């Protein structure tokens, strides 16, 4: 069955219109050949190896226009900042001028600005750094042991306590041995304290003679001998009885 006679065995298929049911845009085939040739030429250009052996990175020419445009934009922007100017030929001579100045300063022997360090500084520097960094942990790990009873602070505290105790004891003793306090605590003082003051005054006014010196205990600055006063009062009391 090399021709369409085989369709006689397939009636349903034979009834189908055998013409090509597909269509193309108008004039499609008129320029298809030219478009195929153009595609072929473009493909050759893409794959063509340069005769001189030089090559360019992939997509180089595709990106070239964009790269050039970007560079133009950047350089235009940079030129806008060119408000500062320099004398003509400045940069051309700058390197030589710098070199000459260096030679002149060296010839004059001007000491370059120098910084100094203490003697032996660098010799100890390494050890100092290590002590503060790597070895710092070892030092700290030894710990600090303070003996409480031998510490200076404790000694001062102990001394202060003794001083306070001693002073307090002396003060209390003084207070206890004070003649005034002693007198106040005596039997005579207690008996006299029961006698009204006005009565004592009246007695003294009635019984004062020319030989008695009018002297009161209340006089400022007058010192009173307690023993004499006691004897005087005792004598008086005996005489009255």
């Amino acid at each position, binding site marked *: 069955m090399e021709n369409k006679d085989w369709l006689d065995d397939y009636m*349903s298929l034979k009834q189908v*219109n055998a013409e090509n*049911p*597909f269509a193309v*845009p108008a004039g499609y085939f008129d320029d298809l*050949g030219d478009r*195929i*040739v153009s595609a072929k030429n473009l493909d050759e250009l893409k794959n063509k190896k340069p005769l001189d052996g030089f090559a360019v990175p992939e997509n180089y020419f595709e990106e070239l226009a964009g790269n050039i445009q970007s560079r133009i934009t950047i350089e235009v922007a940079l030129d806008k900042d060119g408000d500062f100017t320099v004398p003509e030929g400045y940069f051309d001579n700058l390197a030589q001028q710098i070199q000459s100045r260096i030679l002149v300063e060296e010839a004059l022997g001007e000491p370059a600005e120098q910084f100094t360090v203490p003697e032996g500084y660098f010799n100890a520097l390494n050890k100092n750094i290590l002590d503060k960094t790597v070895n710092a942990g070892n030092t700290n790990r030894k710990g600090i042991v303070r003996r409480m009873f031998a510490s200076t602070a404790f000694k001062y505290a102990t001394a202060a306590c003794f001083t306070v105790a001693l002073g307090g004891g002396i003060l209390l003793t003084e207070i206890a041995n004070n003649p005034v306090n002693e007198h106040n605590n005596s039997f005579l003082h207690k008996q006299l304290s029961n006698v009204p003051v006005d009565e004592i005054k009246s007695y003294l006014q009635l019984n004062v003679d020319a030989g008695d010196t009018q002297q009161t205990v209340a006089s400022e600055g007058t010192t009173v001998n307690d023993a004499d006063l006691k004897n005087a009062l005792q004598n008086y009391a005996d005489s009255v009885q």
Partner: protein
Amino acid sequence: MPIEVDDAEILSKFQDEKTRNEAFNLLLKKYQQKIYWHIRRMVIDHDDADDLVQDVFIKVWKNLAGFRNDAQLYTWMYRIATNECITFLNKKKQKNNVSLDDVAYELADTLADSAYFSGDAIQRKLQEALLTLPEKQKLVFNMKYYDDMKYEEISQVLGTSVGALKASFHLAVKKIEAHLLSKD
């Protein structure tokens, strides 16, 4: 309009660098439509067919110098075109992560929406039936039904024996008939 020029003349001119472009233009004029329709019946869409036909002829240009005359020139070009179509359809399947059946459904939709289909309802039904066939059965049917090719020529294109091709063709026609007779 395809021109009538001998394949031997085309090949002879192509061997000479000075006349190579002329030979290629002759080749295009003689075979561009045949190759285009062969592709178009496989991929349905005109724009896809347009891209593929250009790719096919670029490959022809690159490899024609090595053509050994062990087959006819147009069967050799048909083989290139067939392989390009199969590669295109496989890429479509992988790109959309679908099976070949789903690609067939997609092509059926393209056929339904295509502005470049001028066939009647029965012709449309025939094309829909073809889309349900396996690739090789469809190729055999198209080359037999539309291109009037001999089984030996189809064998050179597909690299399949004549007997196997006859069997494939018979199966294809049976399926198409069943589809045409169905009420869908």
